[in-house]
């Protein structure tokens, strides 16, 4: 039986990781993810898990140490935010190319500058094409669940890819709320010990991290892309098993009040919860509005998206990062590309909100829906808008 706990979400994330019995954790402090490794080191210090916690001297080394540990056959975990993710960015695509099933929590935070410690998604979006499986948690419960699911997905023989779990900095990491924490027994049953495909050991002298010449590189990239695309099947299986065991349903795109919806919001991460309240308000006034909550960012669930937007006349895609000088913000660009081949597709508006911790309230979502409905009559001049920016 899972235990109902009240806890800061970052600490609960650490508890969830501990339930997965990691062999090696390597992390470097950076706000706002820091409470995750801090609490894991507490758990190690208390002797609750047998884990080597490496206090590395940088994020670059944190992910590097995880690569070494994972290569040697250990279950490895790290966590970071913002500049930390960028500092380890050199290693991010290597971890996936080497097919090392590392799990990383990202307490999402804006990229500098100006330096800003608060939430947005510019950190993970900068690593969008790195070949990792990328999940977004909407609340504390999803954070806990995804931490555990991540190891199972990553280590599956048909996947062998690293997974990052994104939880909004402060908006999630620093909030105390109730969650159900599975029991050790349940997690042990769900998550078997890690059996690597190959490990660094003299009994079987593998070489990892080879040089790929031009005449092999296309093929190597095709294989990596294929692995990531194919991982969706495993992700869906793991989520199905999770639902059977714990009764909580996970889908690549969660739907809220989408029945009969003509217009919908599409959100990523913790803003989905607040958007639900806005949808309820508008529904009570007769607006046919629904909400799509994207949980699986990579591999991108194109099929599910096409189904989810069927019947919509308009879709407001809410981004939390800017693709400077781009055609759209990252999520909207992805969604437009995914829907381009569809004969019938909704009009898409794109609002960028909550940059660097700028607060987003229920009413903001209501206004964005209203603007999106108006956009059918009068097309907005720009393809995207930083919503609520002063002076425009």
């Amino acid at each position: 039986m899972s235990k109902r706990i009240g806890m800061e979400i970052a600490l609960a994330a650490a508890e969830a990781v501990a339930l997965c019995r990691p062999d090696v954790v390597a992390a470097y402090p950076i706000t706002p993810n820091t409470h995750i490794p801090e609490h894991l080191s507490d758990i190690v210090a208390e002797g609750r898990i047998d884990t080597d916690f490496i206090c590395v001297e940088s994020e670059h080394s944190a992910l590097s140490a995880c690569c070494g540990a994972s290569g040697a056959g250990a279950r490895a975990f790290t966590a970071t935010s913002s500049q930390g993710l960028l500092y380890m960015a050199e290693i991010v695509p290597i971890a996936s190319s080497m097919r090392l099933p590392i799990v990383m929590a990202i307490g999402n935070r804006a990229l500098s500058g100006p330096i800003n410690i608060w939430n947005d998604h510019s950190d993970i979006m900068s690593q969008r094409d790195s070949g990792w499986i990328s999940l977004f948690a909407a609340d504390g419960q999803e954070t806990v669940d995804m931490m555990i699911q991540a190891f199972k997905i990553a280590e599956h023989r048909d996947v062998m890819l690293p997974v990052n779990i994104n939880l909004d900095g402060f908006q999630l990491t620093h909030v105390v709320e109730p969650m159900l924490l599975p029991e050790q027994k349940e997690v042990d049953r769900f998550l078997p010990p890690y059996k690597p495909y190959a490990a660094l050991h003299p009994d079987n002298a593998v070489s990892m991290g080879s040089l790929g010449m031009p005449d092999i590189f296309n093929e190597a990239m095709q294989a990596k892309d294929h692995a990531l695309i194919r991982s969706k099947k495993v992700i869906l299986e793991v989520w199905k098993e999770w639902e059977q065991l714990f009764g909580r349903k996970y889908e690549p795109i969660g739907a809220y009040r989408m029945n009969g919806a003509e217009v919908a919001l599409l959100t990523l991460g913790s803003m989905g919860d607040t958007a639900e309240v806005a949808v309820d308000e508008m529904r009570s006034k007769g607006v046919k509005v629904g909400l799509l909550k994207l949980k699986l960012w990579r591999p991108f669930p194109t099929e599910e998206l096409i189904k989810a937007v069927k019947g919509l006349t308009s879709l407001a895609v809410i981004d939390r990062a800017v693709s400077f000088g781009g055609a759209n913000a990252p999520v909207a660009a992805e969604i437009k590309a995914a829907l381009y081949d569809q004969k019938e597709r909704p009009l898409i508006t794109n609002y960028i909100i909550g940059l660097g911790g700028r607060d987003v309230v229920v009413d903001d979502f209501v206004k964005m829906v209203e603007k999106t409905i108006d956009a059918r009559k009068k097309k907005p001049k720009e393809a995207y808008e930083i919503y609520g920016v002063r002076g425009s």
Partner: protein
Amino acid sequence: MNTVANFDLYAPRLADKEEYFSAGHRACSGCGEALAIRLMCKALGEDTVIVNATGCMEVVSVVYPTTAWNLPWIHVAFPNSASVGAGVEAALKVLRRKGKIADRRIKTVCIGGDGGTFDIGFQALSGAMERGHDLLYVCFDNEAYMNTGIQRSGATPMGASTTTNPAGAASQGKNEWKKNIAEIIASHNVPYVATACHSYPIDFMNKVRKAREIEGPSYIHCLSVCPTGWRVQTEESIKAGRLAVETGVFPLYEIENGKYTMSLMPEKLRPVEDYLKIQGRFRHLTPDYIQRIQKRVNLEYSKLLDKVENLHSWDELEG
């Protein structure tokens, strides 16, 4: 001390016959670094995991789908062999403790060139040494970024011409002295630090064996002649290394628990010019500049001898 003088006679008998770094690697003809790697592996034996920084040795040894390595080997990136090694070491320790792998000691050995050690990988190396991982780090120092085409590094010696500080009408090449990395690592309270050169294979292999047995961090600095970058004849790789030692440019010594010992002390140092003149990278140097180098070599050598004479081991100091 004189093991070095007559070692040649016994060389094949003292070395492991096994080739852990196999033929078919694509290092340049006459590569001192490839030789050094081959010798290091013989001394390490099979219970070893090699962690390689990006660089010549990584590029020439594991070109998919083949590998020159008969040892488990991992390469991740340029600046991080020490931190990847830290992860490997931690994993092997934990997995052994948990009974997930066989209960025997496997040594993690990180290798990198001078760029990956002195410069871009320095932070990771310092961190790993400070944390006290049970790993041996061997720097194969060929004194420039040879893999990318002979650019200046923190290890490039004074007066050398490289592609990023070339000699010219207004330049005598690199105008700064080489970073004393062995000394810096020793300052991390690492129990075993040594310098070595492939031109003294038995000495080098003995040092590797000694370092392997240390339960904790250890560091070996191996001068590795690069005929391509130094512009020496391929057959003179060994000779060039020997001259570096005989002129005092690169003295061989050990620092064991703080105690300095010379591995080889020539009765009289040869003039530095003997070493410089066989290398194209120093060809431009004026006699004055050579004298400047000679003075600095003398100074550094005296500083070292002073340490050998006056510094005590930690055990002695503890009484």
